[in-house]
């Protein structure tokens, strides 16, 4: 669902701290008609300019909280942190020096689990300008 919309142009940019770029972020929206607990995210896979991003370098930011991506895949992750329907989940890729400002090709594969059908897979690929 919503395949062509899950990768958004919203706040697509480098992430900074103390005057230095420590990574970059993209905002994504869910591929389902309701929100889901983060524990029901089966996979978020990013490819930037053809290079797969190491899951260990991804941080998720939502509703004022941050989680290392690999944490939400653990079997003891709490079930009450939701990714609300229609809301941006920010995926931050840690990378010293960030990404060169400008257009980059991004491919997102998003897999979300529901309990009564197979996992939903959405793929979205587009050129995005990173500020």
């Amino acid at each position, binding site marked *: *669902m*919503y*395949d*062509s*919309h899950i990768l958004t142009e919203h706040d697509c940019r480098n992430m900074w701290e103390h005057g230095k770029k420590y990574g970059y972020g993209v905002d994504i*929206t869910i591929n389902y*008609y*309701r*929100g*889901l*607990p983060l*524990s*029901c995210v*089966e996979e978020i896979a990013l490819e930037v300019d053809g290079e797969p991003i190491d899951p260990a370098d991804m941080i998720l930011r939502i509703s004022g909280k941050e989680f290392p991506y690999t944490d939400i*895949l*653990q*079997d003891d*992750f709490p*079930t*009450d942190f*939701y990714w*609300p*329907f*229609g*809301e941006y989940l920010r995926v931050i890729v840690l990378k010293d020096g960030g990404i060169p400002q400008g257009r980059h090709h991004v491919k997102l594969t998003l897999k979300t*689990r*529901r*309990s*009564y*059908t*197979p996992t939903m897979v959405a793929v979205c690929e587009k050129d995005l300008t990173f500020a």
Partner: protein
Amino acid sequence: MAYKDIKFAVSLYSYQDNYYFKRLDFEGAIAAAAGSGAEGIEVLGDTMIPEWPYISDEFADRFVGLQYRYGVKGVCFEHWSDRAMWKNKQLTDDEMFERGVMYIKAAKKLGIPMVKLLHEEHIGPKAIAGYKLTDYGIIERLLPVAADLGVTLALEVHTHDGVGADYQQKYIELAERTNLPFLGLAPDFSTFSYCMSTADIVDYTSRGAQKEILEFFRSKQRGAYFANVPFVYEAVSAEIEKMRPNDVTKQAIQFSMHMIGRKPPFDKLFKDLKDLASKLVYVHAKFYDLDENDCPDDMDYPRIFKALKEGGYKGYVASEFEGNRRMNMAGWVDEIEYVRRHQAYMRSLL
């Protein structure tokens, strides 16, 4: 004289694209439902309550205010049976029970008297191997909790064999045995779909299917339904092969045969609906697309309503528009207009 015991509601599910694309928020969706003429709304906490799975007192109070402002009642709250919470681990039955309690308490907090429960058999027995939803045993435990809070558990049925299927009867028996009016079945009209909807044709065509073949296929399905004979694919397969269907077209036909081809005779489905109508607690008027008379173009709404009325159904019939999901890849689907037309059409059937 119009049948008085049916009232109409709208599931806010119907406005999901307006919400996802930030045209309407929760209040806007309620306004849309009220504007369609509905008296009730079905609320999806997982979809439109930003703070879900928590509900603050402020949100609950605001919901009371919104119902008053828009002159509608919250009549049903949606439960989802998320058992496969983790990649390699599922909730235990006890945890699943607790989750059911969470939804019932949420409905109670919002003052909504019903939870539409996603139960194990909602799409048929053992529909998909490996998935185990909220089952009979858990529902048996949830029923007294619901009764205590005055919340009715509505078990939605959108299987091909409907509310009359033998494996659904144990729930009615459970309700009757415990003498509690807080449990019942809730049919979804998708059971009565007799042909591929034009919404599916729009969807599959946008993905490369051949429109003229799907329209031919659909016309044959309709012909069979109105001739009151079962539709068998073999009757049209030679003609369709001649039209050289591509893979997407074949996939569309296969999906339609899977959904529609294994139904019991429609006479049985309508008889079951009528026979059980007085025991039903809620009804989902699913629709995908409307014909030129505003009747959903793959379901026999006049006959469905006749069965409900003759069977003495008392309660809400809720519009559940699902054409958005079928058609939105091909462009913007005007959910507001669809629901408005659907509500007016259903009202004409009383």
